[in-house]
């Protein structure tokens, strides 16, 4: 591992400075250096999606992203996603049907859903399944996650019953 290096990161619209080895994954810079603990550790191998953040608007697994590779990219995390129109709609939809059980994976789920709706305004069920397949919810809230994405996309009303 290399020695610590100073990095200047743009996170949630603010410039943050850290001094860490270049190999340190962004996840651990966020959680343990900057105290942004909304982004979650689940597997450390890019398998579960709990650590999903946006890098220049694209969903990335922050546990697989060495801080040295971030460069000038704009990082967005769950703490700030409500400031975007799509993020706010997703948060409202999540609460409208109370998607979550334990809630631990939901930050990653919302970040993945937000990237999806940024690319496809009205995704099909197949597109939703495909975009969300990398995010594990151990509690099994998948029916409601699907529904909440459709609600946020304006494709489904609260009482449509498709949650089942």
């Amino acid at each position, binding site marked *: *591992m290399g*020695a*610590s290096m100073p990095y200047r990161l743009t996170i949630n619209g603010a410039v943050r400075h850290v001094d860490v*080895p270049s190999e*340190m*994954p962004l*996840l*651990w810079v966020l*959680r*343990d250096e900057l105290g942004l*603990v*909304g*982004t*979650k*550790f*689940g*597997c*450390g*191998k890019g*398998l*579960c999606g*709990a650590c999903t953040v946006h890098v220049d608007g694209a969903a990335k697994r922050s546990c697989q992203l060495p801080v040295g590779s971030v460069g000038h990219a704009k990082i967005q*995390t*769950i*703490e700030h996603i*409500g400031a975007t129109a799509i993020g706010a709609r*997703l*948060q409202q939809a*999540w*609460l409208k049907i*109370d*998607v*979550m*059980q*334990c*809630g*631990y*994976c*939901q*930050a990653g789920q*919302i970040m993945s859903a937000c990237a999806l709706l940024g690319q496809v305004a009205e995704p099909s069920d197949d597109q*939703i*399944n*495909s975009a*969300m*397949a*990398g*995010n*594990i*919810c*151990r*509690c*099994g*809230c*998948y*029916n*409601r*996650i*699907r529904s909440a994405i459709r609600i946020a996309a304006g494709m489904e009303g609260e009482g449509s019953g498709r949650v*089942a």
Partner: protein
Amino acid sequence: MSPERTVATLDRRTILKASLLAGGGLALDALIPLSAEAWDAVEGKTTVPAELSAFVAIAADGTVTIASKNPEIGQGVKTSLPMMVADELDCDWSQVRIAQADVDQQRYGEQSAGGSTATPKNWLPMRQTGAAARAMLIQAAALQWRVAPGEVTTAKGRIFHAASGRSVGYGEVASAAARLAPPDLKTVPLKDPAQFTIIGKPLVGIDSARIVKGEPIFGVDTRLPGMLYAVYEVAPAHGGRLVKADTAAARRAPGVRHVVPIFGNGDPDTGLADGVAIVASNWWLANQARSKLAAVWDLSAAKGHSSTVYSAQADAAIAAGAGSDLRVDGDPAAQLASAARRIAARYDYPFIAHAPMEPQNCTARYRDGRLEIWAPSQTPQRGLETLHKALGIAPQTVTLHLTRAGGGFGRRLMNDYMVQVAAIAKAIPGVPIQLVWSREDDIRRDYFRPGGWHSFQAGIGANGELIAFSDHFVTFGDGKTPARAAGFNASMPPAGLIPHLRYSQSMLPTVVTTGALRAPGSNALCFASQSFLDEVALAAGTDLPHLMLRLLAEPREIAPHDNGVPFDTARARSVIEKVVQTSGWVQKPAQSGRARGFAFYFSHRGYFAEIVEASVAGGDVTVHKVWVAGDVGSQIVNPLGAENQVRGAVIDGLAQALTGQAIEFVDGVVQQSNFDDFRLARMPMTPEIEIAWVRSDKAPTGLGEPALPPVIPALTNAIFAASGTRIRSLPVRLKSA
């Protein structure tokens, strides 16, 4: 809390305490012994005092604060238990604030999450406490107005006197109420369920708004000034002991501050597994330094503890005979021998891991002889006991804060992580330490759902009736007592429903730690028994729902064989009939390639019948739809949470069967490590799930577990109907067949 308080001792043990809140208002504590019936609801009873406590405070501004005493692990109690208090208090839900209580046995009695017990244990005490507070507020208002309390009504946190047109908010009379004697909890009037305004309404979880914003709420989100992060390297094999550790290289690794070899008693069940703690300024740096450790382990105890060896031992145990009898009804041997038709089959299932999304973690600070802990634990009070036994830390020197847990599933019934972080914190006084397990630690050092083997026989009479049944269960244990969560259920159907039956058991020794996983026992026994009964039904020329209905026969209560709760055949019938109706049951719908399977189970006081529609193509199973009918009593407390529990249980069960879940051992070393080789359900495999509640007249019971067991045999029975392949071994592996 103000010293000014009134105490009513209602009987030997029921105590209500009313006090004046600082700043004005009413605080009400209730320490209530559990009714015998409620205590019966607890499967796997413990010696914890059978008491509950609620705490409700009404501030002068009308804000109602209700303590949430139990751990919240995603099962929804932080919302549903306060709903019970708030409804009887007759306040508006928007007035309610919920405060997570610290661990305090004196004040709250038992604080735990497990066994789907929170609803049955709390249903009456929580409501009585809310009703008592309401009665005191009414009395205070009536005194102030000089009217009879009977003339006064309440709604949405206000008290009304219709005759004079007066009204007052709860907060305005709360201080006066605090000076009154609390009423008798046993006679305080409770609402007719038709009058409920909060119970039964779909309410959003109390923490949900914080969760969607990523606010710090979970154990692993705990942040303290000067905190360091730890990993705990344990022996690669279960049962391994630390001989020595060369820590010099790890100490020099970037960010590392401390490396601490810890010699425990080698038994994580009662104490502390040996290990080496690496403590760094950043968790990733601590974890990276593990590769620099040179530790010598004694792995001799684990030799031969391999999955292939366990299988061979199980084969030998089955070949050797029926083992020790657990239950013999009638004359099963003779009846099996003389039956018109006899069928036999063997079933087995593997060890599996809990794998909650939040890896095991705990935070602790040892300072001036006192330990402060932040723990996502399902049984924090047992954690205190284990700390005492393992480290000699007296419970009264510990402050234990409960955090929200990112999933439990039974894993956090164990407190091994709490003991580990306490040992590390004690070695580094004054510094807050957060121990976080890697996913690999979490998978490999689980208390696994133990594997098991079943050798079944059934005798079918000339008229197609099931007359005799036997199951020889091979499990893990020391020969006298099964390992944790490795026991049998001698009340399992068809016991009690047919005259001739034998259940027996053999045990294999293991060094592997085992434990309760969501619907412990039932999650495996239901697969084996309801799959074999599907074979019996088809052999008898019927199908499983109709065989079960015939066996259940007329409505009656069947006493449990040993500790447990009675089995009500009428409730069982009603959920079976319901799911047959909602699904329009036929084993093979007209649509080509699809078929359905059915299963029923009774566990944790809940009655569940489920039907899975699936298709099989090229060795791949697709689940199209699942129908669920459940009876958990007269009232669903929070429909939003309740349906989530059922959907989650269904998806959990489907994943256990379909994603290849199996934990395997070679000389005590777990061969799986992460979500690539121990897979969980993902969105694309999630079917539509239709839930129907059957409302019986019984008190409400819990939902964390009982919806899980039937879905697995419903699936495997559907696979048989679709493909002709009988799944007698989990996980489902069609491609290699």
